[in-house]
């Protein structure tokens, strides 16, 4: 017949085992410690992306303001072509340029350009030095 364990001794023993288990679990797994995210993106929540630049929202708002563009009427820019597509008007062309960090200027072909295929064409320039030539069929902008 198994020996009878006094109730008090049993409860004390059970409490001891539970305490040791709890202590071990806290030591082993320390659930209060913040889990470190491996390789965080950093840019989340606080910063914004502008063509892969890591910026503050204020940076981006200032850099993408169309006020940064100086329009030059009746002028075409010769420079490194970045991209081109038709846009509704010169403001839309200007807005497209400021969204891209590498756009340093643009030339917009007016609706009355003698070549129909070029009318309303917005051509973005990525060169640091843009040669200006007089041409009444274009409005250009430099950043």
């Amino acid at each position: 017949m198994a020996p009878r364990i006094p109730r008090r001794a049993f409860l004390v023993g059970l409490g001891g085992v539970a305490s040791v288990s709890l202590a071990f679990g806290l030591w082993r797994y320390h659930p209060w410690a913040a889990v470190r995210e491996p390789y965080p993106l950093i840019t989340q929540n606080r910063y914004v992306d502008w063509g892969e630049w890591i910026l503050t929202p204020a940076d981006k708002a200032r850099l993408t303001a169309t006020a940064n563009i100086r329009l030059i009427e009746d002028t075409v820019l010769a420079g490194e072509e970045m991209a081109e597509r038709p846009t509704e008007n010169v403001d839309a062309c200007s807005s497209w340029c400021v969204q891209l960090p590498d756009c340093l200027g643009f030339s917009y072909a007016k609706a009355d350009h003698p070549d129909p295929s070029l009318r309303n064409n917005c051509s973005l320039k990525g060169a640091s030095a843009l040669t200006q030539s007089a041409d009444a069929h274009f409005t250009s902008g430099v950043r």
Partner: protein
Amino acid sequence: MLFNTGLLNSRYDHFVIGSGPAGMSVALELAKANKRVLMFESGEGTGSRDDLPAALNYGHYPATWWTRLSRRALGGSSTIWSGWCTTLMDRDFSSPIAGVRWPLTRDELVPFYRRAAVILDRDPSIVDAEWALFPGFLYRPFSVHENKPTRFAVKYRSVMEASDVLHVALGCSVLGFDATDSRSSIQKITYFHHPTGATQTLSIKPTQGVVVACGGIGTPQLLLQPRADGGVPIGNESGQAGRFLMEHPHFVEAGESVLSFDLDGRALPPGFDKPVHALIPDSALLEQYGLRNCAVDCQHQTTDHLMARYLSKEFSKPFYHYRSTIRTEMIPSESNRVYLTGERNGAGFYTPAVRCVIGADDYLNGETTLRVLGQALIDQGLGRLRVFNNRIYRTFTGGGHFMGTARMGTSRSNSVVDRDCRVHGYQNFFLAGSSVFPKSGYANPTLTIVALALRLAETLVKIG
């Protein structure tokens, strides 16, 4: 004396196999101590030996990478290196990666680094070139010596030709070794003389040191060569030879940085000439983000840039734009290895195959270092950063730095050589070069290679 007759004898104090920066540094240092040295070089006096089969390639690097950046020529890879020098950092020695650490401290190597700097035509002050730049980042420039890298064969040719104690056997490839039954010392070197096609042996005594300095690919290739009796290859009793190959992934111009620091205008000690600037995360930042070592270089400084002009206006002080290439430490991985193929050259020497795969953690280490820098610049009002994702993950290159394939450690269970570059268990068998690096850091290896070679030479002087 340089000769290519292939007629060699054993009447030397030490034998060095390979005449690259490691081998030649050991040999010249021993000669200075009036030790008689025979240095084997499979190349001829001029040009390189290109008639051996190229290493096969698997993994991220291009097909000819391992062969064209290893040279079987007098001077070894010093005939083609770029000349960039920097030391490993304290934490490269003290912090483990994947359970691996150097069994040395940087302090032990510093005196040898200073002497190595002189050999590489730099001022010894480059060894101390590390300054805090702003919280989180150190400034640790590369010394590039006006892009005039030291060519060992040119610089030391006349010394070798005139020396009575240093003999260089050109056109001789070492094929293998014999050792005592207890594998406690090398007792024979077998070599092949390319011009005559003859294979010869030299008997070696336990007091004569044998140093293999054949590069990160050539050294394990030699240690892996199978024995005719099918036994464990001499020098590979650990089974570790060829394993844990590391390169330095370079993510070229993966960053654009705009900093409030005029790095070109920064005063530096005289030895730097025109440095390549580099920002390195400090130890606290590495610990915070669980990163490994990584360098963000800053080149082509200009103020003529949209972001620099914007920040200059916002902060009412000049900002400078740089293009940044990232050099990251690789995690040593057993899968990155030098193997032997079944193809043999005319001397009966098996050709290597090389696999080197850049892991996700290696890429992420580079990318995260950049992003951490970008955050630090914003938080401290010091600039802005751009991270070109494609230039990290779609295009990359390496440094031509082949490391780790006969690594240093405390026991045969995880390494090939001990802290003195002695093959575990042997009395007179040593390895030199970047193959012994257990961790790569981000630093170009040549300065460390020469420093370790000088330290090894001191050990050899003591044994015979």
